[in-house]
């Protein structure tokens, strides 16, 4: 409990940016994208609206609404997933800007922060003018709808900031916070389990709640109830605990002349990468995940988070920047647009202590990682992969290749869950040792030389007699061969409930060379899915 009983409430200034998740999302999308004032946007979490823009709210979208309901109220609603990391990331530069004006900021959550009012008001000549200065600071960041509330205690100041209206700065005079809070409903305490009880007791406003006997409130509602009771009475004992500004670990390099070649950018970034790792090392930390952001000439920004199985060295950082820029192209490939600046920030750090090498070097896995990293810097990030088994009907979809050092897409758990599913129609018996990335066209003919097919009732039009594949040079076997034995058709319907639906027939076939094939007959065409060699 953060309450300090008996303490007089601290004079507090609250800066509140309404609908911050929406504003943060628009910022993340970059300039030229949608604006929070003009578009109907909703961010959803677990199928419910988490935040929505002003026009969306005007159209009837509310927080907590199911997505489908929200879309029915507002047909042009843009629905996106909510990501708390985006909120925090977008708020960080704003806190830094505010800290230049007033020191000692406590971030309550992304979009809202608290400042002790006493210092700024004395320095800037009054609470009102201090608030206006902060509003101006925020306006420079393009935040025009921020609100500032100044009152005794964090709770009262927050409520002051939230009062509807057009004025930007609301000041509740000192000592009159209880009076200000008196008429407000008890829901503002934000305790969902308390609200119905209080209403049953005939307590509807904060003043009525504050009028209850503190001892009875504690008996009935416990410590948390007592805390709420003090909030309602305007006796918010929480002090503003200013954050310690974290050391600046992210590094950025700007190119005077925008560069349009990957190797130029990589060269220009080399020193910055070394500085980045050195700064982190000075703080006795190591970065285990970094975020690389690239700004291009055409005003776009691409960001990606890179993980590392151990921790990043300068050359690892440089590799990630290069891979992000080339995106599968060669090292000397041109870029879509010239690069203006590259910034890299640590996404997760760990104590360097936990990553120190032993006296005689690290374990064997370390050398393995170095070896594969070398190959990766030769061939690109996707050049070295590991395989994870998952579920699927076709053999090629039953394993997922994960770049060395990355996490599998969807997570280890999801893949394991898919592996456990029944997957009707899976191939019985031992599995083929060669599974073609993409099916290879083959021919299967009957005794009359016609292509074997399956009719609408799933009956074969003829017995497979001749088999021809254009591959298998290793076994010396392209050309036509008699079929030795075969089995099928085993029908398999995939995704019959959606557009990508297809119905295929599987066959196993052994040709005269003794090679066993897993074949697919789809849309009257034969393909080899896999080879048992």
């Amino acid at each position: 409990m953060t309450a300090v009983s008996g303490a007089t409430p601290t004079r507090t200034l609250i800066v509140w940016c309404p609908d911050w998740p929406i504003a943060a999302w628009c910022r993340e999308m970059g300039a030229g994208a949608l604006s929070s004032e003009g578009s109907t946007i909703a961010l959803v979490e677990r199928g419910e609206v988490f935040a929505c823009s002003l026009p969306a709210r005007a159209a009837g979208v509310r927080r907590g609404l199911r997505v489908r309901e929200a879309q029915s109220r507002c047909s042009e609603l843009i629905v996106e997933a909510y990501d708390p990391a985006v909120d925090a990331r977008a708020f960080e530069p704003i806190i830094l800007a505010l800290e230049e004006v007033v020191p000692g900021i406590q971030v309550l959550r992304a979009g809202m922060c608290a400042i002790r009012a006493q210092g700024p008001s004395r320095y800037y000549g009054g609470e009102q003018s201090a608030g206006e200065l902060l509003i101006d600071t925020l306006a420079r960041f393009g935040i025009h709808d921020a609100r500032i509330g100044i009152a005794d205690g964090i709770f009262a100041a927050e409520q002051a900031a939230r009062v509807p209206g057009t004025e930007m700065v609301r000041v509740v005079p000192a000592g009159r916070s209880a009076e200000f809070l008196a008429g407000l409903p008890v829901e503002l305490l934000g305790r969902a389990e308390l609200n119905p009880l209080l209403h049953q007791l005939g307590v509807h406003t904060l003043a009525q709640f504050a009028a209850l006997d503190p001892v009875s409130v504690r008996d009935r509602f416990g410590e948390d109830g007592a805390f709420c009771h003090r909030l309602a009475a305007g006796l918010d004992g929480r002090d503003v605990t200013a954050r310690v500004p974290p050391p600046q670990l992210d590094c950025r390099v700007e190119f005077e002349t925008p560069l349009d070649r990957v190797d130029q950018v990589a060269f220009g970034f080399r020193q910055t990468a070394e500085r980045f790792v050195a700064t982190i090392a000075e703080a006795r930390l190591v970065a285990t995940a970094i975020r690389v952001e690239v700004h291009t000439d055409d005003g776009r920004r691409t960001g990606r988070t890179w993980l590392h199985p151990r921790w990043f060295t300068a050359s690892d950082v440089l590799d990630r920047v290069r891979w992000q820029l080339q995106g599968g192209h060669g090292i000397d490939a041109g870029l879509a647009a010239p690069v203006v600046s590259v910034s890299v920030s640590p996404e997760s750090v760990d104590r360097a202590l936990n990553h120190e090498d032993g006296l005689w070097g690290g374990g064997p896995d370390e050398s393995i990682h170095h070896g594969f990293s070398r190959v990766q810097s030769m061939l690109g990030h996707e050049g070295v992969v590991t395989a994870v088994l998952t579920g699927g009907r076709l053999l090629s979809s039953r394993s997922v290749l994960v770049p060395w050092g990355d996490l599998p897409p969807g997570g280890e758990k999801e893949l394991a869950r898919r592996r456990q599913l029944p997957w009707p129609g899976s191939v019985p018996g031992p599995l083929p040792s060669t599974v073609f990335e993409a099916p290879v066209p083959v021919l299967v003919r009957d005794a009359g030389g016609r292509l074997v097919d399956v009719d609408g009732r799933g009956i074969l039009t003829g017995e497979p007699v001749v088999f021809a594949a254009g591959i298998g040079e290793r076994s010396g076997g392209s050309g036509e061969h008699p079929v030795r034995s075969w089995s099928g058709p085993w029908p398999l319907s995939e995704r019959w409930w959606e557009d990508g639906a297809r119905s295929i027939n599987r066959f196993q076939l052994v040709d005269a060379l003794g090679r066993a094939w897993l074949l697919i007959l789809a849309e009257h065409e034969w393909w080899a899915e896999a080879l048992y060699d």
Partner: protein
Amino acid sequence: MSPAVASSGSAAEKVAELQARIRGMQRTRVDSHGLPTAPEIASLLGGPLRAGSAYSVPDSVALATAMMAAPSAAGVWCAVVGMPSFGVEAAAAAGVDLERLVFVPDPGDQWLTVTAAVADVVGVVVAVPPARVAPAEVSRLGARLRGKGSTLIALGDWPQSEATLRVSGSEWVGLDAGSGHLQARRVTVTVNARAGAGRPRSASLFLPDADGRLRRAERVPAAWQSPASVPLREQSPAAVPQREPQPLQQPEPHEPQVAPLRALVS
């Protein structure tokens, strides 16, 4: 390999024994230790897979996988270079630990550099060599392998290989004209050791057996000979993991398989 063994025998045996001695003396490296090897492979090679050597397996991915399985299960890191269509699931069934298996699906035109870099750090590399490799490159990679003590299994002809393992006479069990499903394959694996190192050895193996593993096929389990019990699974504790009978999409899975089985056994 004691010289005193040559008490009896013809000239041919004498020659073979002397050749074996020469081969033993050529391997002068002190730490040329053997890798954990499946007994079926070891008996064919006349010893375990040797660290720092190259083996050539020109025509069977399954055999290369089976050779990799025992070292992998024993904790050796393995890599597969230049095989985008490697059957991952089959490898897992054969006993390869996917946690310690790394793929370089497309080394492009840097095959030698990539293979050498990978061989520096892992114990076993399975790789498809390009159609033409210069002899100098073969020697360089060979030296690199010896230096680092890693084993190359080349899926193709490799000039300086310790032994070449070929698969011949594939006989599939379980598939008939229009029914059944593939259950196991009986093959003859022939090993040609490097020139002058003895006669070729060969053995009849199941590759794969019903569990996707490698198994000796000299003695057919008695259970197989009775038509009543068809499932190709030995009732021994070695046959782990026991796979559940799978739901088949075929009319009668058991009946028609009897005929080919008997043909094999007799």
